[in-house]
Structures are given as structure tokens and as C-alpha cells.
């Protein structure tokens, strides 16, 4: 067996440095009593994790962690503390004994297990030598996409991604049930302001929003070739809408994209995904077997120049199937993120007081 010795190279140094930073950040979050500080530290924690994921050859994960952890999660957390309170109470030290014991037990088991794990980077470990390698060998032949992560995500394990889309949809349903109804004081007309102090912001936003949307589409369609895909694109698309709400006011945005429309689009996305699966079934394949997406007579009609590549075997079904389900993911994710944002932004602390029971 040939394995690389654990040499202390630059990659390993960066790896260790980043992990130490993460540990320090987590410690700071444990200690701080200010919620705002905890949220900002968490956002940095997410961003550093994203950098670490790049070092570990996981650009897709890094991308997602960056848009989710440092992006959406931070927005939602900030929205939540606006509606609650910014400080935590100092816990009694006696109350910390039991949690500490639980954590030490869990940590102990983890370290104990780590002694049996293969070393970092071991190419012949079971995880890397068995199906991890099998995917790399099979994907170009079966799917014909350069990005193996997308191939596995959307085709081999497409059902996981379907479930994930359903989870996002469920989260949208949950947030809408919690925060989507009731009075919306913030939708009242804004106070009349003489003179526009935000003219730079408005002009910049007007320029940025279409660019962000365009970038979302690039990420969407680039997912086959490099890092990216429906989920990341959906979050970026939602970011464009959220930016609009932040600059022009929620009222304007809600009139452009009403909450009910956002909720409908979210369920439509899941339906697109399920529809692709059912179409494959009707044409004689298994659920989500994109090779059966088109009946053979239709598949013959598709011109070869469409994807600009005649060398690879043409997996039309796989290409179009993945494109369509990624579209479903985009719709659900973007619409759900907007729904979640509406939920938190649409409530103000005044609503909260009014609804609070005496």
C-alpha cells in the first residue's frame, strides 16, 4: 500500500490554523453574553468554515456554507434578536455542571472513536476507496457531467435532494404558520421624509439587484461544470429580493412579490421536481431515472449542437433532468428564503407587544 506520509505542508498548516480559529470563535461564543456579538461571531465562524471547506476540496459545500451560514442565517438571527432581546442572563455556575458532564462524555466518545479513524487524507480508507471512488469512475460515463458533486447530488442521490427540497418547503410552511399572519405594522406607509438621504443607496441598489439576479442564474447553470447549483442560486436570488426590501422598504417589495405568491412558488418548485420524477416513471423508468425523461423518439430529435459538445456520449435525459430539478430547487429555495424573510421582517416589536397576552 502506498500512502503519503503525513508531511507538514502548507495545506496542513492552513488547515490547522483555520481549525484553531474556529475553536477560538466557538469559545468566544460560549463566553459572550451579548447576543449581537454571538451572532456576528457565528457569522465569522461560518465564513471561516467555508474557507476551510475550500482547503478540503469541497468548493460546493464552501459556497453553500458561505451563502447560508454567513448570509441567510445571520439575517434570520439578526431579525430574531430585533424581535426579542439582546442580552442573555448570566447562568448560575451550578447549572453548568450537568451540561458540562454531557459534553465531556460526548467529546470523550468522539476522541475515542477518532483513535480508530483513518488519518486525514488517507486515500485507501473505506470511505474514499469504496463508493467515493466508484462515483468518480462511473459518473462521467453515466451522467456526463464534469462536476461529480452535482452528478451525485442530482442523479445518484437525487432522492436525497428531493427530500432536502421538501425540508426547505416544510421550513417555509413552518415559518409562515408562525410569523406569516397577523398584523403588519411595518406595512403602514412610511413617514413622510423631506429630501432623500438614501439616494446613493437607492441608485446603487438599482444597479446591483439585476446583477445579483444575473449572478444567481450564472451559479444555477454553472453547477454542472463547477461549484454551484440550484440551492446556492436560490439563496442568491432571494438575496436580491431581500436587498430590495432593505433599501426600498418591505411595503414596496411585498407589492412586487406578495407573500402568497412566494409561498405558491415554493410549492411549485417541489412540484417541478416531483413532476420530473413522475415523467420518468411514465416513460418506463424508475422515479427520477432521467435516462427515461424523454421517450426514445423524442430524444433522437434533439440536435447535437444544443450542448455544444459532441465528444461525450449524449446523456440528454440526464442533462435536462438535472437542469429541471435544479430549477425546482431554485424556485423552492428562493421563494422559501423570501417567505422566511417576510416572516421575520414583517413583524415589528410593536406587533409583538400588541399580540402579547396580558
Amino acid at each position, binding site marked *: 500500500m502506498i500512502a503519503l506520509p503525513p508531511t507538514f505542508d502548507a495545506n496542513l498548516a492552513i488547515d490547522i490554523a483555520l481549525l484553531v480559529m474556529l475553536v477560538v470563535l466557538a469559545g468566544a461564543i460560549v463566553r459572550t453574553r451579548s447576543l449581537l456579538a454571538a451572532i456576528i461571531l457565528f457569522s465569522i465562524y461560518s465564513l471561516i468554515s467555508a474557507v476551510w471547506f475550500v482547503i478540503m476540496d469541497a468548493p460546493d459545500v464552501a459556497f453553500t456554507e458561505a451563502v447560508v451560514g454567513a448570509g441567510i442565517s445571520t439575517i434570520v438571527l439578526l431579525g430574531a434578536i430585533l424581535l426579542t432581546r439582546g442580552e442573555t442572563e448570566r447562568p448560575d455556575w451550578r447549572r453548568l455542571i450537568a451540561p458540562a458532564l454531557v459534553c465531556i462524555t460526548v467529546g470523550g*466518545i*468522539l476522541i*475515542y*472513536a477518532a*483513535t*480508530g*479513524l*483513518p488519518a486525514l487524507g488517507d486515500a485507501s*480508507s*473505506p*470511505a*474514499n*476507496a*469504496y*463508493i*467515493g471512488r*466508484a*462515483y468518480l469512475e*462511473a459518473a462521467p460515463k*453515466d451522467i456526463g457531467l464534469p462536476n461529480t458533486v452535482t452528478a451525485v447530488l442530482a*442523479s*445518484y*442521490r*437525487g*432522492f*436525497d435532494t428531493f*427530500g*432536502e427540497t*421538501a*425540508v426547505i*418547503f*416544510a*421550513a417555509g*410552511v*413552518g*415559518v*409562515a*404558520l*408562525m410569523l406569516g*399572519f397577523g398584523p403588519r405594522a411595518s406595512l403602514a406607509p412610511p413617514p413622510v421624509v423631506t429630501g432623500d438621504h438614501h439616494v446613493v443607496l437607492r441608485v446603487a441598489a438599482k444597479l446591483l439587484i439585476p446583477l445579483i439576479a444575473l449572478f444567481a442564474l450564472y451559479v444555477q447553470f454553472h453547477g454542472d461544470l463547477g461549484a454551484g447549483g440550484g440551492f446556492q442560486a436560490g439563496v442568491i436570488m432571494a438575496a436580491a429580493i431581500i436587498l430590495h426590501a432593505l433599501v426600498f422598504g418591505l411595503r414596496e417589495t411585498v407589492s412586487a412579490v406578495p407573500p402568497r405568491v412566494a*409561498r*405558491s412558488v*415554493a*410549492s*411549485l418548485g*417541489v*412540484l417541478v421536481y*416531483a413532476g420530473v*420524477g*413522475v415523467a420518468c*416513471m411514465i416513460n418506463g*423508468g*424508475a*422515479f*427520477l*431515472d*432521467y*435516462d*427515461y425523461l424523454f421517450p426514445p423518439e423524442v430524444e433522437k430529435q434533439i440536435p447535437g449542437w444544443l450542448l455544444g459538445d459532441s465528444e461525450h456520449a449524449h446523456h440528454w435525459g440526464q442533462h435536462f433532468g438535472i437542469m429541471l430539478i435544479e430549477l425546482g430547487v431554485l424556485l423552492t429555495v428562493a421563494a422559501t428564503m423570501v417567505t422566511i424573510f417576510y416572516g421575520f421582517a414583517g413583524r415589528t416589536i410593536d406587533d409583538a407587544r400588541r399580540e402579547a*397576552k396580558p
Partner: protein
Amino acid sequence: MISFEALHAAPLALTAHAPVLMVVGPLIAACAAALAPTARTSWMISVTGSIFAAWMALALLGEVARRGAVDYYIGGFAPPLGIAFHIDGLSVFMALLISSAGVMASLYSGHSLSAEVRAEKHTLVQAGFLLCQSGLLGLVSTGDAFNAFVFLEVSSIGTYALIAIGEKRDRRALPAAFNYLIMGTIGATFYVVGVGFLLAATGTLNMADMGARLATLGDSSVVQAGFAFVVVGLGIKAAMFPLHGWLPGAYSYAPSLISIFLAATATKAAIYLMARFVFDVFPDGAAFGQGFIAWVLAPLAATAAIVCSLQAVFEKEIRRMLAFSSVAQVGFILMGLSLATVAGASAGLFYLGAHALLKMTLFMALGGLAISMGARRLDELAGVARDAPWSATAFAIGAASLAGVPLTLGFLAKWRLIEAALQAGQIWIVAVLATASLLTLLYVGRMLEAIFFRAAPAGAPRAREAPVGVLAPLWILAGLNLWFGIDASLPEKLANAGALALLGGTP
């Protein structure tokens, strides 16, 4: 004798895809329910989706009886590369249980929701309910360890919010739902960490493949940690004592549609997955597996049966009584499984089904009463039997079944457990069962005494009889408690097939 082999419930074209249709059907219905223009339409979609899932489960029952097990390769990729559904006798047992509970709960929701939840939220509530159903059905059908996590989350995420909307009647629903979310997420994440260790050890996620590889691997710290994390994670989800802290609140304050459905299915699905790992994925001879069953699972289950029955005896709020009783009954089920014999597993599964049926009856009867009066404490229900005799009688049947009165399903369930324990020579389990059953009798007696034999306090608002839309599903359930109490051949056969699938050497 019933023959499942002759059962052809659906046309061949549908039966061929039944495993996935059973899961995707309710999911599509969930999207449709969210799009529905009115509450009534969403209710109809919900009933249709649930019935469709139950129909597919029936179609699978015939297929599994004929072929032993049904494998369905999603995306056309064979495992371990692709995700495969593996449906055997046990999966079909669970799928039938979940989908028929879904049908009953959705029928009942037509009336209950309008009393408990604001009308504009109904479409989303039905969507969340269908998502939960689809997630649980996916969980019991999939043969892929990570896919099971995804479905665990599909079933949970919406549920947290559905529990929280119980705040309209009782604001304690909100902290209870939050607590459930925290514990549930820790449970699911522990499960993922455990699967990660197993992936590191075996390199695969397919449960059958994982089992085959673990059998040749032998013991290692990685495998042991994987086992520990999977079992603790699922133990939280299954409300295994002492990880059950989230359950009483979550079941007590939720809208009754949700209590009914969750009480019948949610913890059971987690028990199913745990049994799959303990008996199927981990090799039979593994020392830590045996040790876990003998020294952790069985004692904890016995403690749960006694301690939580006691808690139910001293509880004042009736829905919390039923919730504590649920944790105790999880103990009964796990005691059966911990015998690790086919008879024990069969008795455990039989008990699981019986408990689902009788707890649904009880929660539904209580929900029916609560439509006219939002009773919380037991003493508020005093004398309710005179005002709402039909609901109260159905409640009494469910309660008798819970206490194990002869000629009810609950009696047979307890009987079979005792029989299996005697066969396995575990006398102490019989003693625990007897003690816990006595305690059950105590709290059931308290409930019935209040409802039937106490006079309503003067001037207290009177209850009204529940509407027909509630009474119909309620009495179907109550009737089944009695019917199966006399002729249990159907559930017996299903439970036996499930136990054989779990322990009889099938992958």
C-alpha cells in the same frame, strides 16, 4: 385465515412503483394543499393524499407477501451508488400503520381544525401534516442510512411549527415546540454523526451493504461510536427513557390533529429505525450489540414503564397523563424487542400497533370533547359522559384497551408480551409488566371515574356531543379496538411477518 398473497390492491403499473408513490403521493398532495384556495379544498386534498398512501401500502402488502421483499432503485441506480427502497414485512407493517393513522387523522381534521386553528392557516397546516406523513413513510421504506435522516427531517421540521400553533388554546405549546425542536435536532444530528462513523468504517450508506461489511469488519472504536451515536440519536426521537423530556409537552399542547397523528406514529418510526440498526445493520454476534440490549435497552425500557406510569398517575392535566402514558408504553414496546427473539419482536410490534390504535382513539375522543370545551385538567371533565355519551364511551373503550381489559386489543397485546417473556425465560420482565399494568389501571381508573361517575360541578359550562365528522373516525377506531380484541389474526399476521423480517435473517 387471511391470505396476503392473493391481495392485488392496485393495477400492476402502479404496484411496480408503489414504494416511491407511497412517499411521493402525500408530498405532492402537500404542495397542492399549500396551493389550495380554501380550507375545505385543502382538507379534501389531505384526505385524498392520505388515502392514496394507504392504498399504495396495501398494494405493497400483497407484493411483499408474494416476493418476500420489494427493492426499488430510485433513479435506476443500484445500491450502493444509488438510493434504494427496501420494503420487507416490517416496513410494510409500519407503512400500513402510518398511512392508516394518516387517513383517520385527516378525516377527523375536517372538523377539529376549524375549532383549534385560524381558518387562514388551514391550508398550511394540512400541507405540514402531509409532509410529516410523507417523511415518516419515507423513513420506514428507505434502505439508505442517510436518506433516512433526510426523511426524519422532512417529518420533523413542519411538525415543530404544527405543535407550536397549539398556542391559540394554550401558550405553553410554544416553549414545548421549541424544546422538541432542540431535542429533535440534536437527536437527528447525533444520528448523522453516527452514520458518519459507519460510513468511515464501511464506506457505504446502504443499510444492507453496511450490515454485510460490518459483519466482516469486527469490532472497532469507530463502529462502537457509530452505534452509540445512532442509538442515542434515535433514542431521543423515540422518546426512550430518559431521553423523553420533550414528549409530554409536545403531545399535550399541540392541536388535536397533530397529537393524534404523532402519538400513533412519530416515536414508532424512530423505534423502527433503531430496531433496523440494532438487529439488521449491526452483526448479530457483536458484543456491544448484545450488551446494549441486555444492559441498556431492557433496563431503561422497564424503568420507563414503571416511572412514567407513576408520573401519569399523579398528573392533573389529562392530555399530559396520556403523553406520560405514551412514554411508558414505548417502554413496553422496547421490552418486547429487547427479548431479541422472534416471539418477543412480534409481541413488541403487536404492542406497537395496538398502542398506536388505542392512543389515537383516546386523543381523538379527547379532541372531540375539547371542540366544545377546552378542558385541560381532569376535574374539568367531571360528568362529561352525560353530555357527550358517544365521545365518552369511545374514550372508555380506548381506556379499557390501554388498561388491558379482556376482550380488547390492549389485553391481547399485553398477553402476547408476557407469553414471549416467559418463553424467553425473562421472568423479571413479566414482573415489570404486571407492576406497570397495575399502575396503568390506576390512572385509567382515575380518568374514567372523573368522566363517568363524578357529577359536573353546578354552574360549570356543559359539553356538547362532538359532530358526526369526528364521531365517525372515532368510532371506527374504537370498533377496531374491540374487533381486534376478539379476532386479532390480521394484526398478528402482520406483526409476525414484521418480526420475521427483522430477525429471520433477511438483509
